[in-house]
């Protein structure tokens, strides 16, 4: 019986996101970070297809051309097996980024579940869950990853599980703190007063209001996760050759420093740019989404 205009819905949402995007654009560093992340994402999607020497990515050798310095044919030079370093770096992007993203995602899901349960319920549930996550925090992630690799065998999936296991307590702490704060909001009391179930209060009223700090932490963590994945590759318990992975590439190249510097410098640069880009993006997102946390 009453006409509800539909356009006001669109205009209000569009206006809010337009404002957020404007503020984001005002910061040059944020835009640089976003651009770098865009490049990383591009190579994550198309790195394998665009690699100039796809046969090298699959493990093919060309011993006649080993340790060639950077040239037009091989802009990043070639390695000890005569493989094109540019192709390996490009093809290594999806491995590193996917592993980093998987780690952050699993860590976030586990952390949100544990943190939300602890913060929302309080009492002994809170105590047990938070002491357990404190315990997990005390185990160094590399040692845990080595233990998991020893128990389950090295490999891509095991590596991700191992890192994620040491990753979630940070999220659990963040989410618990945010939930404790949001739980005291008047609109939460209002929701309980209208008869909302605890699940409804948590999922509809508390969690949507603490998404911003979680997203910010995720984007800041992406860089560290990529580094951790590379570190595991470096010490030889992560991704195994011939699958190209930045840390593994660096680990092998270490033996040929400093004479054949290009075998190490270019994978290192790729890692540096990816980590730096995600950090800048995270800082920018924090300023837009979560201004309180700005230091």
């Amino acid at each position, binding site marked *: *019986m*009453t*006409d*509800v*205009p*539909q356009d*006001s*819905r669109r205009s*209000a949402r569009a206006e*809010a996101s337009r404002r957020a995007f404007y503020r984001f654009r005002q910061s040059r560093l944020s835009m640089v970070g976003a651009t770098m992340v865009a490049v990383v994402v591009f190579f994550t999607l198309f790195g394998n297809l665009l690699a100039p020497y796809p046969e090298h990515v699959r493990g093919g050798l060309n011993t006649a051309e080993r340790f060639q310095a950077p040239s037009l044919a091989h802009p990043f030079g070639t390695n000890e097996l005569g493989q094109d370093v540019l192709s390996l770096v490009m093809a290594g992007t999806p491995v590193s980024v996917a592993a980093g993203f998987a780690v952050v995602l699993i860590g976030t899901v586990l952390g949100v579940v544990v943190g939300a349960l602890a913060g929302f319920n309080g009492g002994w549930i809170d105590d047990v869950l938070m002491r357990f996550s404190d315990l997990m925090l005390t185990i160094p992630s590399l040692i845990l990853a080595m233990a998991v690799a020893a128990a389950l065998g090295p490999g891509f999936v095991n590596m991700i599980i191992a890192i994620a296991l040491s990753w979630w307590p940070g999220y659990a702490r963040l989410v618990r703190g945010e939930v404790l704060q949001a739980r005291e*909001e*008047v*609109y939460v*009391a*209002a*929701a*309980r*007063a*209208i*008869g*909302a*179930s605890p699940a*409804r209060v948590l999922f*509809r*009223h508390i969690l*949507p*209001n603490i998404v911003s700090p979680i997203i910010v932490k995720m984007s800041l963590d992406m860089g560290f996760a990529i580094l951790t994945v590379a570190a595991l590759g470096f010490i030889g318990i992560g991704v195994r050759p011939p699958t190209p992975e930045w840390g593994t590439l660096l680990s092998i190249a270490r033996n040929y420093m400093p004479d054949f510097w290009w075998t190490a410098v270019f994978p290192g640069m790729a890692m540096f740019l990816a980590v730096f880009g995600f950090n800048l993006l995270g800082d920018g997102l924090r300023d837009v989404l979560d201004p309180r946390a700005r230091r």
Partner: protein
Amino acid sequence: MLEIENVSRVFAERKGMFGTSPGVRALHEVSLSVRKGESFGLVGESGSGKTTLTRQILRLDTPTSGRILFEGEDMARLSPAALRALRAKVQIVFQDPYASLNPRMSVHDIVTEPMLIHRGILGLNRQQRTDRAAELLDLVGLGPQHLYRHPHEFSGGQRQRICIARALAPGPSLVLLDEPTSALDVSVQAQVLNLLIELQQRLGLTYFFISHDLGVIRYLCDRVALIYRGEIKEQGETQRLFDAPESDYTRSLLAAMPPDVRRVAGR
């Protein structure tokens, strides 16, 4: 309709590392009864237990002792399902309209949420809920064009109207008004008060009106109770209480009122 019988609420003392924090007696033997269709005012200064009492009535908190009966039923003895059904009948408008609306939800979602939760009782489908939300916005003087806006796009007075629409959504018979105008500009206060009076007449609502503003209480309420440090000092007809106060506390409170408020007559 609402009987509060000897309700006390004591916040227990806490033993911490640095000594014991003493217990707080927030409510002591409070007894009130609110009749159907009236406006009952509760006056008290900050920290006197007004808000604690509303939390007991809403069962957001449990009294240490005493009973609260709504339409003859002891709220503490209700099953969880019965309590949820009862929550459709007792609604609240909070003091701070800036804090009491979820910033992530549109006005539509805010106003339809009580209908969604109580759909078992109300029996409204999605389209009917949207239509009713639009009607409610009309009723509180906002208009359905605001349905898909978010709370941050509204002024304090408009937000309080949204809160009123949300409170009316499940079809309550008793509405608790916890200082609904004290966070608003003076010019807006009068508009919201008049809206509340109009709604009461149209919908036959019972109000439990909490305030520290005696002028507002006098304007709106049929009967009043004064609460001081968790105890009811006096209660009775508004006119009688203002004209012939019985307790010393009431007299000192009335003496502290600015003269124009004392003179301006009620309704």
